[in-house]
């Protein structure tokens, strides 16, 4: 085996991701130049569009909430050595759970109905991830392929359900009726308004706090609990885990279940927080970008929150960009996400080797001087 590339902790946690991000933006800049736009103008629009006003920051945080959930979902599976590509499908099913709870329990007051919706979403997402986990643990089918298939099964299932079962009667568009008002998660604007602080109207809602709580919970789980230790052991060395009396199969199922429940948070923020009904395709690729978020955040909750903020800003800035320069669409975020996954994930060794060599060189220079 080739020796792993040893790096100081600060370089591992900050320098390598920073270089990957910088490289990804260089590639994105080249694409911008390639289609005949000025990268500096584009950057200016991106920054002011995502952070330039209270309005923009609200949208940025709203998108970041989605990315925190999907990033955490991917990360928990990563820690167990699993690759959960099924975030999209799990969030879709979570949307079904959210809708069923919100539409069937309208008599509950908000303090009961909102938790019920969140729990139903988490449960549905969890089950949709648990099945692939269980199939890997007991039948040996690889979780990557199964979750891909489950994404497509969920996509066809949801069309069927929205058209035939839970859709709004008499509606031609595939969506449910509007959720009752007591199922709406309060917006940050409404909460701050109660304290007399005026905020522009954005879809940003209290789900952001739920996402941050989930990030803290994942940190507690992974780094401070017995179960988290078992998950990390299975991810790092399944053989050693078995020897230590941990059942890798059980951990695989548990990790996938938690991962799916976290992906369900996407449905909570989108459906209960903003759209207030279930619509087709609300997952909009957040599940896939979550992979980039988790890779960039080095699967650590703090890193994931930061990476989610970056992607939230890109997403919001990208919308402004599409508005101001007709040649550039929001797909720019997908390109940047793709390049980041390539650089921070698949080509990680390239950057780590480069950093290790530069540090060694710098170290020698310091010694000589």
């Amino acid at each position, binding site marked *: *085996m080739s020796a792993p590339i040893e790096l100081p902790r600060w370089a591992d946690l900050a320098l390598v991701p920073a270089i990957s991000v910088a490289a990804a933006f260089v590639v994105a800049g080249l694409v911008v130049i390639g289609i005949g736009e000025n990268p500096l103008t584009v950057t200016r629009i991106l920054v002011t569009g995502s952070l330039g006003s209270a309005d923009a920051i609200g949208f940025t945080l709203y998108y970041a909430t989605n990315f925190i959930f999907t990033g955490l979902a991917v990360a928990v599976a990563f820690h167990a050595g699993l690759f959960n590509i099924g975030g999209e499908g799990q969030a879709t099913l979570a949307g079904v759970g959210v809708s069923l709870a919100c539409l069937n329990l309208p008599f509950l007051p908000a303090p009961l109905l909102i938790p019920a919706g969140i729990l139903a979403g988490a449960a549905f997402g969890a089950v949709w991830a648990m099945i692939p986990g269980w199939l890997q643990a007991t039948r040996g089918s690889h979780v990557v392929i199964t979750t891909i*298939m489950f994404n497509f099964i969920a996509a066809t299932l949801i069309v069927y359900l929205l058209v035939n079962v839970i859709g709004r009667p008499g509606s031609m568009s595939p969506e449910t009726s509007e959720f009752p008002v007591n199922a709406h998660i309060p917006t940050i604007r409404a909460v701050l308004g109660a304290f007399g602080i005026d905020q522009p109207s954005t879809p940003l809602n209290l789900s952001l706090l739920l996402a941050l709580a989930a990030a803290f919970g994942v940190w507690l789980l992974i780094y401070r609990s017995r179960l988290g230790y078992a998950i990390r052991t299975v991810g790092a060395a399944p053989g050693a885990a078995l020897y230590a009396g941990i059942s890798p199969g059980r951990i695989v199922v548990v990790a996938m279940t938690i991962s799916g429940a976290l992906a369900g948070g996407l449905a909570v923020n989108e459906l209960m927080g903003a759209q207030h009904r279930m619509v087709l395709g609300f997952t909009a690729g957040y599940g896939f970008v979550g992979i980039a978020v988790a890779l960039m955040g080095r699967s650590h909750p703090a890193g994931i929150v930061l990476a989610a903020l970056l992607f939230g800003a890109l997403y919001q800035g990208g919308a402004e960009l599409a508005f101001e320069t007709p040649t550039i669409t929001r797909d720019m975020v997908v390109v940047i996400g793709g390049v980041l996954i390539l650089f921070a994930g698949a080509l990680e060794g390239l950057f780590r080797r480069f950093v290790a060599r530069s540090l060694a060189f710098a170290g020698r220079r310091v010694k000589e001087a």
Partner: protein
Amino acid sequence: MDLQSLAVILDSALRLSVPLLCACLAGLWSEKSGVVDIGLEGKMLIAAFAAATGAHASGSALIGLMAGIGASVAFSLVHGFASISQRGNQIVSGVAINMLAAGLSAIVGNAWYGQGGRSPALEGQARFNDITLWGTETIAAVPVFGPLFREVVSGHALPAYLAFAAVPLTWFVLARTRFGLRLRAVGEKPAAVDTAGISVPLLRYAAVTICGVLCGIGGAYLAVAQAAAFLPNMTAGKGFIALAALIFAKWRAWPALGACLLFGLLDAGAIRLQGASLPVIGTVPVQAIQALPYVLTVILLAGFIGRAVPPAASGIPYVKER
């Protein structure tokens, strides 16, 4: 069901199975050499875009095909560099390829043509026209077989015939040539191939290049033969159905043809069965038929019907001993 409607269904099944077959064989080559590829979808998509662009700019479908193959091979080599030279995670790299292709094709298409990512419609020589096979009219006189031959076997575009020709070719090269033997060995036990003094990276790069060529043909077929333009995300998951077909075929060329034809037939049937009522089962939701390939793959992978075992070294980067 009369002969005419049977011929129509079989013909559309064949058409729908072409991109699946290309991507499926592409995946076969890559995975037989030990490189897992979930980026088939992305490669077909970028190939479809490049093919439509090339065909539109040059007015020649053939140049479009070449452009498609070129773009797809370039993406293949990125995946190869990440997974062979850099020994990175092949799943991660595949996801990146898919996202890059989806984003790039949409954004560049929108910037160049300003039609929301669509390419201009391809006409005349810029599109592959259907080829009437030699002897079709002579055979057409034969009852049953003749009309079926004319409707189903004859009358497809060039990339379709390339795809079907790739099946025996893939089988022959992998099963009957020295190169094929080495390629399969590198996917099962690369250390043994290395010991014999044969370069593991070289073989794997050859395999991902062939994978790129096949995805290129599939993408070009979508944009320049089946449709007459590039549409954003026009592969619509075909690369993943191909992955399912590959597992279904247990990584073998002839069964891959069978699996792709079956999935093509399901697709064609789903379009025909929309709203129709079947005896015994009643009305089958179209979505159930659409989901069938994925459900079948999950069941097969779980070992409930047969066992699908991938090449032993697939997904594992090869590290030379020091």
